[in-house]
Structure formats: C-alpha cells, structure tokens
C-alpha cells in the first residue's frame, strides 16, 4: 500500500457564481482499520481562503501548522490578508523545498481573490500547481471524484446548487473507495457568508 493511501482521504473544491465550495470526507484510518470518523481535512487560512489537505494525516496537520505560521507573519508584516494566488505560490514553494523528502500531501486551495473572484487550484506533493476553472480533486477517491465532478458540474451555479452538486459528487465517489467516507464536511463560501455542513453518507 502506498504512503498516500495509508490514512485514506477525499478532498474536492468547485467554483460557482461568485462563490466556491470545498469538501472532504471524515474518515481517518490506519490502512484498513477505521480509527476516526470526524477527522478535519479542510482548514481555514483566513475568511476568504481555505485549504484542504489529502494524503498522510500527520503531514497534512504539520503542513497546515506551517502555513498558518507563515500566513500570520505575513499578515503582521504586510497588514493585509494573502491573496489566494499568492498563497498557492507559497504552498508550492514550501512543498518544493522538501523535494527529496516530501510532505506526502496533495493540497487543494480554494479562495475568493480580488473583487471576490473564486479561485481554486491543486498541486502534487512536490508543488506542481494546477489551476482550474471548474473543479479540483485529490485523495484516494480522486479517480471517482474526477468522474463524478465531470458529469455533475456545470458553470455558474449559485451557492445552494453548488452545495447540492459537491455533496452528491463527494458521496458518490467515496462510496466507491473503501479508504474514504464515513460522512462528509462541506463548506460553501460567498463574499458575505460561510456555510458549514456535515453530510451523512454510508458509514462504512
């Protein structure tokens, strides 16, 4: 079993009309045994910027701590929040620093940039950025997620429709993956509000 499949994970982000949604599963496993059903994979950097980290859970937590550290210092020095594009470049640089001993994580970054334009991107464990206009996926369920998102996604969805779409895509994909699942956590962010929800799925 590869190191990326040790804990199991599924993370997806989608762009809507002036909003974005980011979602993850909640299972934490040790190979085939489930040891947690409320594991957090999506983290807040600031009010309009979130990062989901799939892959090895310990690296996800440490990487998140390092990123929050860097962002807080940036906020103090520059007296402003980081733009999502800038944050993505920072994550990419941090990951590449460990090129020959990497963090076993695949980040998914989602945020509202200048003029509240939604921004999403993903990268591999050594920082190769991939920007997308529609959706990005990562984790052990990524192949199913690609299929589900491709068929369910349409551009310019409003927050409610986006929520439905991303939840259905996540549920359908993790059900086909034994290493991820046990419910889902969805976050829909618009310029004025943030909606968090826990969705129920097959608990197995």
């Amino acid at each position: 079993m590869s190191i990326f499949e040790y804990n199991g994970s599924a993370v997806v982000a989608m762009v809507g009309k002036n909003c974005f949604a980011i979602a993850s599963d909640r299972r934490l496993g040790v190979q085939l045994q489930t040891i947690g059903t409320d594991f957090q994979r999506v983290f807040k950097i600031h009010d309009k910027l979130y990062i989901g980290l799939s892959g090895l859970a310990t690296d996800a937590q440490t990487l998140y701590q390092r990123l929050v550290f860097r962002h807080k210092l940036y906020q103090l020095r520059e007296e402003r929040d980081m733009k999502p594009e800038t944050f993505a470049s920072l994550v990419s640089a941090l990951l590449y620093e460990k090129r020959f001993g990497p963090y076993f994580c695949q980040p998914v970054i989602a945020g509202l940039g200048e003029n509240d334009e939604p921004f999403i991107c993903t990268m591999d464990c050594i920082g190769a950025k991939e920007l997308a206009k529609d959706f990005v996926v990562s984790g052990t369920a990524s192949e199913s997620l690609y299929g589900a998102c491709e068929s369910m996604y349409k551009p310019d969805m409003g927050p409610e429709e986006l929520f439905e779409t991303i939840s259905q895509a996540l549920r359908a994909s993790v059900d086909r993956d034994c290493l991820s699942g046990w419910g889902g956590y969805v976050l829909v962010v618009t310029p004025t509000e943030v909606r968090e929800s826990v969705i129920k799925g097959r608990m197995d």
Partner: protein
Amino acid sequence: MGDSQYSFSLTTFSPSGKLVQIEHALTAVGSGQTSLGIKAANGVVIATEKKLPSILVDETSVQKIQSLTPNIGVVYSGMGPDFRVLVRKSRKQAQQYYRLYKETIPVTQLVRETAAVMQEFTQSGGVRPFGVSLLIAGYDDNGPQLYQVDPSGSYFSWKASAMGKNVSNAKTFLEKRYTEDMELDDAIHTAILTLKEGYEGQISANNIEIGIIRADREFKVLSPAEIKDFLEEVE
C-alpha cells in the same frame, strides 16, 4: 569629548547612549553630494547632483540612480561603493520575494528588508555601517511612496526630503514649495529648482540625474535630452 574613547568599536555604546560609528557614518552622508526626492499626487521624483571629479570622466558611465525592481528606484548620498552593495542586496531580496509569492514586492516590505540589512551591519563583528543614506521611490497598490533609510537602519516615509551637503537649505526650500496635490511634472520642476539652489557652478543636463515613476508603475531614469527639456521649462 568622552565619546571619542568609545569610537573604536562599533558595537559599543558610548556613555551618552550613542553608537559613535553611526554618527560618523551620518557625517559621511552629510558630506556627500546632495540628493532629494518629492512625492507627488501621481508619482515620485528623485534627483541628485552628479559632480564628477574631472571633465575627463565619461559621465554616461556614472549611474547614481538605480532601479531595484521595475517599479522601485533608489538614489543615495554618501559613499558610492557602499551604495552599489546595497542595491545588489536589495535587488536579490526583491527577487526572492517574487520567487516565493509570485507577486512583486510592496515598497514598504523592500524598504524594511533593506533597512534590516543596514541594521545588521551595526550589530555584527568585524564590519562597519554603510556610509550612505538612501531615498527609495516606488509606486505600488498603496500609491506613490518615498522612503529614506539611514546608516543606522531607521527608515522614514517622506512627502519630500533631501540629504547630503546642502540638506538644510534644500529642506527649507522644499517646505516652502511642497503642496499635497502637486502633479509629477510640477514636482520635477521643484526638484530641479531645489538642486539649483545649492549647486556650485552651472547646472546642466549632464551634471544632474533624475529618476521618476508615474502611475504606469515603471521607474525610469531620465536621459540627458529629457532633463534638458525640463531645465528649459524651468528657465
């Protein structure tokens, strides 16, 4: 003066609470050629005298105003070689910022990092402070900005300032002439007049240097032909 006993070691405070080497560095700056900067409503201008030691020197090879990034420029008063070292370090820091964030460095951040370098040289072993004060001019998302950085590492934001030999007369002149809503072209004229005030000899397009940055955020050093046009407008 009791202070002179403490002027041998940079890292030792004198009883009056000063670091004497920094005072001496400021003296070196104060005897350097006059330079000045003015922040206008839509840009910044920096200028300096370019008095060469002999008429045989090729004045086109002397560049006292340099750019640190496409939208930030700098001028100095004091020791030219120290200036070159700082320009090199600042340019590198600006590029490191870009490599990390893929975003051009804000003016305040570059000023802060340059000032931090200058401060390092006042608190390390075996080095001396830089014998220059810098005037950094830039235009970024926070609009036009002008900063002065001293050998001690302190930095100040100015609406208009001068440094070097003729500093007190130049500052008095600027205080009288400066207005908040000045346009950049007016600021350039004022800068030339201020330089003219303290200039020993005849001012011309070849013995001053002017750098400007407008709202297009591109720092440029004016060519002698362009300086000549402004000089003629002034006269």
